[in-house]
């Protein structure tokens, strides 16, 4: 992609909503006022950014740990390339998988090409769920590993640098 598809007003809108949408009956009016544009323009710009995929979605971001899902495991799998387009969406559709991505292998240190983040209330629950992914992948998976979280070192939302 060459250049940025957004202008300075869009950037100001993004910055004005980075901390979240105001919890008031007319939140887009509040934001428009902060940016110095009409509410209609703020809404039109956000709608355009949604349609263009610049805004992924508008809504709630759950905090897994606070929801009691204190154990998270990054399960990683070396899945045959030809089987991945079929299997990836099936792993993503499992209701305990929160993130599921195809990423590059970096041999020899890193042979895995499928990542599935699994959340649960206990280590046993997470282990059982990872086992279910393994059964789904079956013989198309050559190798796998599970990386349990030990500590959160930093967690903030996506920020635009000033």
């Amino acid at each position: 992609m060459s250049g940025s598809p957004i202008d300075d007003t869009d950037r100001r809108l993004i910055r004005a909503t980075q901390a979240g949408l105001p919890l008031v009956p007319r939140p887009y009016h509040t934001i428009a006022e902060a940016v110095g544009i009409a509410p209609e323009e703020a809404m039109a710009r956000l709608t355009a950014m949604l349609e263009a995929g610049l805004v992924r979605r508008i809504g709630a971001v759950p905090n897994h740990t606070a929801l009691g899902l204190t154990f998270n495991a990054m399960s990683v799998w070396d899945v045959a390339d030809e089987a991945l387009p079929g299997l990836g969406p099936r792993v993503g559709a499992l209701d305990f998988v929160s993130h599921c991505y195809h990423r590059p292998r970096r041999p020899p240190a890193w042979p895995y090409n499928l990542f599935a983040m699994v959340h649960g209330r206990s280590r046993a629950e997470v282990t059982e769920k990872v086992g279910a992914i393994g059964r789904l992948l079956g013989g198309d998976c050559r190798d796998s590993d599970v990386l349990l979280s030990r500590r959160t070192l930093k967690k903030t939302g996506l920020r635009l640098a000033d």
Partner: protein
Amino acid sequence: MLDPVDRRIINALQGGFPVAERPYLDAAAALQLSEGELIDRLSRLLDMGALSRFGPMFNADRLGGGYCLCAMAVPPAELEAAAAIVNGFVEVAHNYERQHALNMWFVVASDDPARLDAVIAEIEAMTGREVLSLPKLEEFYVGLRVEA
């Protein structure tokens, strides 16, 4: 703790929140709540930490920038110092210690694509450790479903 209405809100409002004059009113109607009750509950869920955020989620790689998952193998004795270096970059949103030889996992995000490689190079120079970059090639799913 969460009651069934909270769980319905969390499951229903991870996306699709309207852009409208009175968006909470519209979203509340679909959940058979009043506007005031939805705003109060969202406020409480944010205060108690059940939600880390409520609002638009921007797609860094479509904003002309991008983001990249990175992994590093850091000897335990150097972990705190390396974490301080990595966390010091505003472009690093998440950083986790994990149980693996590759024990530090972080995400670098920027609306300026040139910054991604620059941040990774600076982290390598400052820590003296190799950074493995693992950018997303394809997304199969992102979201969290809470048992209702």
